[in-house]
């Protein structure tokens, strides 16, 4: 059981990838991509965890208290916020695609230059 957290990260990665590959809706696809992203957080936090250590905030602790790895936590927390905006960017692309093509199904998308000739 000592490697369970790594297994969870791998599971999230593959579940998310399966969702992306089998997706029939661009919004569903974006959400699956965020699941893939979350697998990296689980991996990072698992790598930094140290049994019996404190959270890396020394405000109320002696300054030499033993803490878990703050580097991976810093990486994960910036990525959560930055990832939210990149997700918004992808969703905005989905909105545009729906406006231009009238569908969110990736298999029904057509090249844009063909679309112009077709009167809607």
């Amino acid at each position, binding site marked *: 059981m000592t490697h369970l957290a790594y297994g969870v990260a791998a599971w999230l990665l593959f579940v998310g*990838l399966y969702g992306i*590959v089998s997706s029939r809706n661009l919004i569903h696809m974006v959400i699956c991509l965020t699941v893939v992203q979350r697998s990296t957080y689980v991996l990072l936090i698992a790598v930094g965890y140290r049994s019996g250590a404190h959270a890396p905030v020394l405000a109320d602790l002696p300054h030499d208290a033993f803490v878990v790895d*703050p580097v991976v936590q810093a990486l994960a927390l910036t990525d959560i916020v930055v990832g939210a905006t990149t997700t*918004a960017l992808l969703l905005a692309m989905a909105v545009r695609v729906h406006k231009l093509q009238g569908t969110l199904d990736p298999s029904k998308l057509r090249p844009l230059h063909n679309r112009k000739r077709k009167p809607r």
Partner: protein
Amino acid sequence: MTHRIRVIAFLAAAAVAAVLLLRGLGGMPEFGAGHSPYRQYLNEHAVAETHATDLPSAVNFSYRALDTLGEEYILFASVAGVAVLLREPHRGKKPAKKARVPDDCCPEEAVVAVSRAVVTVVIVFGFYVTIHAHLTPGGGFQGGAILGTGILLIYLADGHEAFAQAIHPSLVHALEAAGAAGYVSLGLAAMLGGKAFLENILPLGETGQFFSAGIVPLISLAVGLEVSGGFSSLFVDFISELHRSSEESEP
């Protein structure tokens, strides 16, 4: 390529990748061992070097401040991308008939009451989390997200019109620009003083006091403004898009 073939091809590729990945993960250090040299260095020296007691903030806004600058600009670029994608090219034609959007989406009274009650608290808390980055858990990224939530509560409580009145797009853009420019200015100010980009130029103060840790809380404030401005800009764009399409679809 049909759906079925694509899924089968993925499953075959994923099986191979999974074997390799699980082998690799099997060679990782045991969960809870966490013997990273960076962890050890920061544990021993971070408080003495930066005078910040929140180590993730010390990492983000001091040790790897340059990387955080890059990440802040990913956020900046994404928000700009959303604006480019969602804003309509014809700027002159403002929807003059505001009343056309039906208020059938009126929220529950309880939602309105709670949102109005907590909105100021949330915004104050967001600033608190942002400017206490060096002392307690938090920082510009988390605080900015809380501030963004507070701004979205205005929409939740009072709807689109009140939101558009309270949160003018130029305010949002000013917040975002102040955050982006402030971060770079802090870095350039260090260079003017003959130090490296983003090196600390302010007195470190006494550890645990509010005015301490040099430029860490200032960078955090810049990031907080950037994140809150960016999130609000996303809300403004998506909400106007929502209302524009509901106007278009109306007969």
